[in-house]
């Protein structure tokens, strides 16, 4: 992972192209992750609450704690690798509010996973927190990637 230690990423054309391609594909991943979750759990607060807590009137079974934990376990692993890679590229970018943006993204991702598990027990406000934090961390991670792509495309 030369890009984590090399300070002149833009001077090496191979690394520059590699990181641009990586960033574009990760942007696609983030967009598809939101689409995938909205297809699985629904896109409104009521639909998501029904998918998590179940609804007897509509014959929807609640999500079991084991299934939820398995999903969080896998998604958290992906988020760790993804944010570490995005964070390592973003480290070299000259941008304002770099550290707050990174902190916001990583903290909100942790909160979204924690509130997802909590919402299985308490529902209500925690479903709303899960939706909000999930969307914000995806948007801020995408923003970090877009800034990185623009920085990498510009020649020094």
């Amino acid at each position, binding site marked *: 992972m030369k890009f984590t230690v090399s300070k002149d990423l833009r001077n090496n054309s191979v690394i520059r192209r590699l990181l641009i391609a990586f960033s574009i594909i990760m942007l696609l991943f983030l967009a598809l992750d939101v689409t995938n979750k909205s297809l699985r759990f629904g896109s409104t607060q009521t639909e998501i609450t029904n998918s998590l807590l179940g609804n007897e009137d509509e014959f929807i079974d609640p999500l079991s704690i084991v299934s939820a934990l398995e999903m969080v376990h896998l998604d958290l692993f992906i988020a760790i690798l993804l944010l570490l890679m995005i964070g390592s590229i973003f480290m070299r970018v000259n941008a304002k509010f770099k550290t707050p943006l990174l902190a916001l993204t990583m903290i909100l991702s*942790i909160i979204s996973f924690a509130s997802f598990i909590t919402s299985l027990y308490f529902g209500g406000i925690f479903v709303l927190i899960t939706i909000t934090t999930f969307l914000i961390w995806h948007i801020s991670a995408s923003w970090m990637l877009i800034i990185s792509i623009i920085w990498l495309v510009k020649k020094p």
Partner: protein
Amino acid sequence: MIDTYAKTLIALFALMLLSLLATSIALFSIKIGFEPVEIAHFYMGDDQSFIAKKSFEGLFETTAPHLFAITSMIFIVIHLLLFTSYKKYVPYLLTGLLISFISDMFSGYFLIINMPFFAIIKWISFLIFQILFGISIFMLVSDIMRHKTV
């Protein structure tokens, strides 16, 4: 000297790793249980509790992704520890982590070929792995926090 950005990245990476450890402990306790008897029943099956014996295919499905995922996490944490003042402990930590991880992963296979003793090995190796990985993360964060910020 280390800049605020790198400090934030490593500290929050460590926090996310701890959350991952917490989910693995929760999954272990809910799905399998922390008693060696419960571990043996989970893999070998138990007629009284209506638990079916695990198949080789089922174990492969769990082992394959974990071999990649846990080894990459060990690699990332240990390689970061090499840049800290704790680097002299790295060989011991790495050995402990790898041995406990491998014995945790593969003791399930010995259980399904009727070797119940491996329930204790799985239980001990799971605990040792979680403790050692937790210690590695703690060492990483404590060293990063001691550095002056640029």
